[in-house]
Every structure is written in structure tokens, then in C-alpha cells.
């Protein structure tokens, strides 16, 4: 419930979300998805949902980016769009 920070972070979330699907490189997309998840965690913390923020922090920082990188490592980085 801290609206100035909230507004800025929301803007950044939109930017990183658009970036994650627009980048023409799957590894870059995975990395940007990591940023998206960091910012989402901050957003939950600002709204006071501590447990959700904790889950998102551990999941986003620890696991999901690694899964994406592992999958890209096992397939290919190439994408047409």
C-alpha cells in the first residue's frame, strides 16, 4: 500500500514483460523473465502479501530461471519472433 513505489514498479513490470516476449533470443527471454519475476515479488511485498512474495522470491530467483536456462541449453536458442 505504498503507492509511489507501487506505480513505478508496475510500470517496470509492464516493460520487462513486453521485453521478455519481444526479445529475439530465447536465452535473453529467459533472463528477462527472471527480471519480471523479481519485480513481481516486489509488487507482492508492497501490497503486503509477505508469504506470496517469499514464494515468488524463492521460486523466481532460485528455480524457474534455472529451468528455463536448462531447457534452452537442451534445445536451441534460435527463435524467429
Amino acid at each position, binding site marked *: 500500500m*505504498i503507492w*509511489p*513505489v507501487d506505480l*513505478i*514498479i508496475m*510500470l*517496470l513490470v509492464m*516493460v*520487462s514483460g513486453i*521485453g521478455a516476449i519481444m*526479445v*529475439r*533470443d530465447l*536465452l*535473453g527471454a*529467459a*533472463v*528477462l523473465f*527472471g*527480471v519480471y519475476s*523479481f*519485480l513481481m*515479488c*516486489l509488487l507482492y*511485498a*508492497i501490497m*503486503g502479501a*509477505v508469504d506470496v*512474495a*517469499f514464494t515468488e*522470491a*524463492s521460486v523466481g*530467483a*532460485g528455480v524457474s*530461471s*534455472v529451468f528455463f*536456462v*536448462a531447457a*534452452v*541449453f537442451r534445445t*536451441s*536458442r*534460435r*527463435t*524467429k519472433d
Partner: protein
Amino acid sequence: MQAIFLYASVFLACLMGLSLYRSVFGPTVLDRIIGVNAIGSKTTTLLILIGLIYERVDMFVDIALAYATLNFIAVLAASRYFQKKKGLFDEVEGR
């Protein structure tokens, strides 16, 4: 003090925007990783500042601790990708 913490967190959020520029428009993937690293380090501080604004720091400090320890796993994984598959551009089209 509350106002100081509020201004500090707003300032940090703006700085995150600057780092986000590097990670969205960075010419190579490694520049993006630098941006992610910078954003992660700012996030740790920002979480504790939010805790101070809520006046419940003892609850938020756990999240920040988890963040500080796990923040670099993604960086390690991405750098391990480059150590195994050499070459920065050869797989990516259009460069």
C-alpha cells in the same frame, strides 16, 4: 524517518528502471545478465526498505535473506551455458 525511507525506496525504484534499460536493450545476452544482477542487488535493499515502511522489518528480512543467497543462481546457470556452448551469436538469427 518514514518519509526518508519512502523517498529512498522511490529513488531505488527509479534506479531499477535505469538498470532495466540495460537488460531490455542490452546488445548481448551477457549485458542483460549484468542488468539482472544489478536489479537483484537493488531488490534486496528495497525489500528491507519496504519492511521499514510497514514497521515490520523482522518479517521482511527473511525474504531479503532468501533473495541475497539465491539471487546468483540464475547468473551462474546462464554463465554456465556460455561455458558449455561457446559462441555468442552463432545460434541467433538476424545479427
